[in-house]
C-alpha cells in the first residue's frame, strides 16, 4: 500500500505543481486566450461529462468524438501491429525478402507519416476509413523494422536447439522465434503507438467531422479557448490510456524475463 502511494505521488507531483503554478500565473494575467487550469477543468466537465446519468454522465460530444477517436486509434493501431509483425517476421526470416523490401521499410520509417493525410483524403475522402488508413499505414513501419531486426537477430544456437529437440516449424515460431524477438517487437510497437496517437489527432485536425481533434479545431474556431484546451486534455488522456494499457500488456508478456520488470 505504501509503495503504491509513493508511486502515485512520484508520478503526479510535478504535474500537480505545474498546474498550480499555471493557475496562479494565469489568474493574475487574466486573458481569455490563456484560461487558468480551473477554468479548463470546468470546460472539460461541461464538454465531455455533462450528459445523462445512465451514460455515466458522458456527453453527446464524448460519445461522438472520444468514441470515434478511440475506435479509429484502436482499429488503425491493431492493423499496424498485426500486419507489421507478420510482414516483419517474414522479412526477418528471409534474406531474399529482406534484400528486396528493406529499402521500402527504411523509406517508411524515415518519412514523416502526416504526409499521408492529404494523400488519404484524395484516395478515400473524409470518413472513418481515412484516419484508420493514415494511422495504420503511418505507424506500421517501426513495427516492421523492429520485428524484422528482432527475428533476424535470434540466436543461432536457440534455433539449432529448437531443431535439435525436434520442434515442428509452427512450434519453432511459437516457442522460440517469436518469444526471442518479442522484446524488440514490443519496442517497435511502443514507438508505433506514439505515432498512431499523433496521427489520430492530426488526421482529425486536418479534415474530419468527428473526433477529439475535430472538437479541438471546432472550439478554436468558436474562440472558446477553455473548451479547446479541454479537447487537448482529452487527447492527452487518450494517449496516456493507450500507453498505460500497452505498459500493462508489456509487463505481462515479458514476465519471467531476466532484464525486465523488477
Amino acid at each position: 500500500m505504501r509503495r503504491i502511494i509513493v508511486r502515485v505521488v512520484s508520478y503526479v507531483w510535478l504535474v500537480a505543481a505545474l498546474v498550480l503554478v499555471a493557475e496562479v500565473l494565469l489568474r493574475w494575467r487574466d486573458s481569455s486566450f490563456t484560461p487558468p487550469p480551473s477554468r479548463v477543468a470546468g470546460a472539460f466537465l461541461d464538454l465531455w461529462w455533462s450528459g445523462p446519468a445512465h451514460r455515466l454522465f458522458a456527453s453527446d460530444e464524448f460519445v461522438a468524438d472520444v468514441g470515434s477517436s478511440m475506435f479509429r486509434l484502436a482499429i488503425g493501431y491493431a492493423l499496424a501491429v498485426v500486419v507489421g509483425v507478420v510482414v516483419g517476421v517474414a522479412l526477418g526470416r528471409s534474406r531474399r525478402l529482406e534484400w528486396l523490401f528493406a529499402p521500402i521499410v527504411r523509406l517508411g520509417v524515415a518519412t514523416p507519416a502526416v504526409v499521408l493525410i492529404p494523400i488519404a483524403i484524395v484516395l478515400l475522402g473524409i470518413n472513418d476509413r481515412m484516419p484508420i488508413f493514415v494511422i495504420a499505414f503511418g505507424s506500421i513501419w517501426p513495427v516492421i523494422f523492429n520485428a524484422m531486426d528482432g527475428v533476424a537477430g535470434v540466436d543461432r544456437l536457440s534455433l539449432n536447439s529448437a531443431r535439435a529437440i525436434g520442434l515442428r516449424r509452427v512450434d519453432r515460431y511459437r516457442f522460440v522465434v517469436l518469444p526471442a524477438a518479442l522484446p524488440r517487437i514490443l519496442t517497435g510497437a511502443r514507438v508505433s503507438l506514439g505515432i498512431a496517437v499523433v496521427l489520430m489527432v492530426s488526421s482529425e485536425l486536418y479534415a474530419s467531422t468527428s473526433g477529439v481533434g475535430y472538437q479541438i479545431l471546432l472550439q478554436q474556431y468558436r474562440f472558446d479557448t477553455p473548451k479547446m484546451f479541454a479537447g487537448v486534455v482529452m487527447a492527452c488522456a487518450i494517449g496516456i490510456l493507450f500507453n498505460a494499457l500497452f505498459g500493462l500488456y508489456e509487463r505481462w508478456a515479458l514476465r519471467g524475463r531476466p532484464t525486465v520488470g523488477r
Partner: protein
Amino acid sequence: MSDAGTDSAALVVEGLTKTYTTNGVDHLAIEKVDLHVDAGEFVSIVGPSGSGKTTLLNCISGLLRPSGGQVRTFGTPIGDGPSEDMAIVFQDYSRSLFPWLTVERNIGLPMRRTGASRASVASAVDSLLEAVGLPRSVIGKYPWQLSGGMQQRVAIARALINKPKILLMDEPFASVDAQTRISLEDLTLRVWREWNKSVLFITHDIDEAVYLSDRVVVLSKGPSTVKANVDVELPRDRDQILTKQEPLFGKLRSEVMDLVMGQ
C-alpha cells in the same frame, strides 16, 4: 579398433566431409571422417582447438548439411534435421535452454512432437528431474535463476525426455566449475548405463575423455580427419579418484595427449 560401417552400430559416419565457402574461397573443415558408435557404447571425440569438433557434431546431428558422406543411425540415413533417435546436449546451456520458458516447460517442450497429453508431460518431467538430481522446487523457476550446473542438468533432462537411443554431447561441461563437472560426469555415466544409451561425447579435455569412454577418437588439426581410435580398457564402475590413480589411466592419458599434441 573395430570395423566401421556395420549396421548393428547405433551411429555410423562414413566419409563425412564439410566444406565452407566464404567470399568464393573454399575452406575444408572436415575431410572424410569415418567413425561409429556401437549400441551401448560410450565414445569420446577429442582434438586440438580449431579441429572442427562442433562442426563435426552439427553435421552428424543433421543440424548442418555435410558436403559429402553419410550418417546413419541404426542403419537409417539421417535426413534433413536431427533424427528422432538422437538428442543433443550443447555446451552453452544459457543459450540452448529457452530463458522465456520455465524449467518444466523447457524440459517438456520436446514432447510436443509426440502430441503427448499435459499430464503425461508433467509426469515425465517429474521423473526426469529426479533422474538428473534436481529438486522438484525448480519446476516453476526460469533457467537463468539456476546455477550453471543445474541448468546443464535441465538440458540433460530435456535431451532425455523423448527417450533417444543416442546422446550427442558437445563439450557439455566446459563452462562449469570443477566440482560441478565431476558430478555431471558421473551423472552422465549413470544415465548412459542405467538407460542403456549410446553416447558420442565431444570434449577438449583428455582426462574427461579417458575417464568417461570405452573408446577415444582423436581428431587431427583442421581439416579434421580421424587420427586414431584409442580403446579404453579400464574397468567400468569408474571412480573419480580410484580410476584416475590407475597406471593404465595415466598411460592412456599420455597416449591420447601425444596424439592430440603431436603435429
